[in-house]
């Protein structure tokens, strides 16, 4: 019995930092911007990680707007491709927000990160610097509960507006919390169905208003 070849990418050890690393791409390596950031902002740049030729810069949360504006003005990072929240599920600085920036003129990509505490997670908004951040920040607020200070329209993106939870947080159960998302009423002005498995519990939705349902009396 011969063994099958099994190729895998090791998770814990970084790959070789050479151009022959299949994951390494020259576009994600931007030492110029990183060194300029370190020079300009000093301690506000907390950590620079280079993995598989990608630069990730962890910066101080309070200075993210300043740093983004600097990169936009001086290094051509005019395009915010993505922004999102990460639940690290750690004791300190539980939530993280990443910003993927693209410079179209220099063909570079740079990732910025900020971290925030579990109690009252607040990050300054980037929606005035990059207009694309508007909906991304609404999504991060909806899914993670990270509040973006200064955002002019921080409503939920996907979930109903009266939903009480932030479903992408790690403590949120995958199947949801029963009763938190109502099903529609069977007739106008009727009671909302709070049981998500109403059909399994014997409820039969009515076909039209004229019809009397068996479950109405119950």
């Amino acid at each position, binding site marked *: 019995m011969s063994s099958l070849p099994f190729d895998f990418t090791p998770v814990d050890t970084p790959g070789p930092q050479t151009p022959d690393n299949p994951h390494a791409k020259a576009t994600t390596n931007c030492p110029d911007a990183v060194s300029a950031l370190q020079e300009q902002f000093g301690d506000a740049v907390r950590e620079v990680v280079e993995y598989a030729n990608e630069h990730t810069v962890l910066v101080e949360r309070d200075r993210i707007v300043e740093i983004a504006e600097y990169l936009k003005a001086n290094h051509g990072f005019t395009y915010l491709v993505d922004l999102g929240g990460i639940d690290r599920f750690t004791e300190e600085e539980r939530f993280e927000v990443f910003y993927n920036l693209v410079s179209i003129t220099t063909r570079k990509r740079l990732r910025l990160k900020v971290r925030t505490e579990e109690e009252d997670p607040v990050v300054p908004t980037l929606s005035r610097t990059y207009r694309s951040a508007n909906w991304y920040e609404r999504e991060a607020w909806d899914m993670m509960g990270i509040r973006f200070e200064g955002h002019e329209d921080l409503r939920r993106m*996907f*979930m*109903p507006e009266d939903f009480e939870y932030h*479903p992408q947080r790690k403590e*949120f*159960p*995958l*199947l*949801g*919390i029963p009763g938190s*998302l*109502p*099903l*529609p*009423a*069977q*007739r*106008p002005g009727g009671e909302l*169905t709070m049981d*998500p*498995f*109403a*059909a399994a519990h014997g*409820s*039969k*939705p*009515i*076909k*039209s*208003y*004229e*019809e009397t349902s068996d479950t109405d009396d119950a």
Partner: protein
Amino acid sequence: MPLEQSLGEGFLTTRVDAVVNWARSNSLMPMPMGLACCAIEMMAFAAPKYDVARFGSEAMRFSPRQADLMIVAGWCSYKMAHAVRRIWDQMADPKWCIAMGACASTGGMHRCYGVIQGIDNFLPVDVYIPGCPPRPEAVIHALMDIQEKIRNDYSVAQDYQSGQLPEGRLPQGSHVVTPAGDAPSKLVVHP
């Protein structure tokens, strides 16, 4: 003298229910509630290759007022459910509903907080189609099942409980043919 002889050729006597049901079942206008990838198969179902015009249902009506068959194709979120139910409520009676695909029928692979685990939690589904997504033939089969259901229903009396006589709605001496409870093909004549 029998009625047919007095009327001559070109006339045919039948029951009103049979005529109405024949017309209804062969002119179903689907309301395409395409929510996900099943909608693509639903388009194929309506398009020339599978040609649902053979069954009289090629006219997809995007207005609920003009539709009488809702095909819920794809997974339905809790947020969307309110819109779907509202559209269903706007459809005129009589109306029918098909849950197309695994997601609409049971939630399918979307076993998570945002997706309804089967649209029968808020809609009265007549026919469920398995598959992910179902092939257009399966949708046609479901449509034929709906047609079968309509033909075995009785239409003029407007009662929703099949196999039971509507109380107090019929004039004295009329005859109503209804399907017997568990066997839809067997008809029972009520004097």
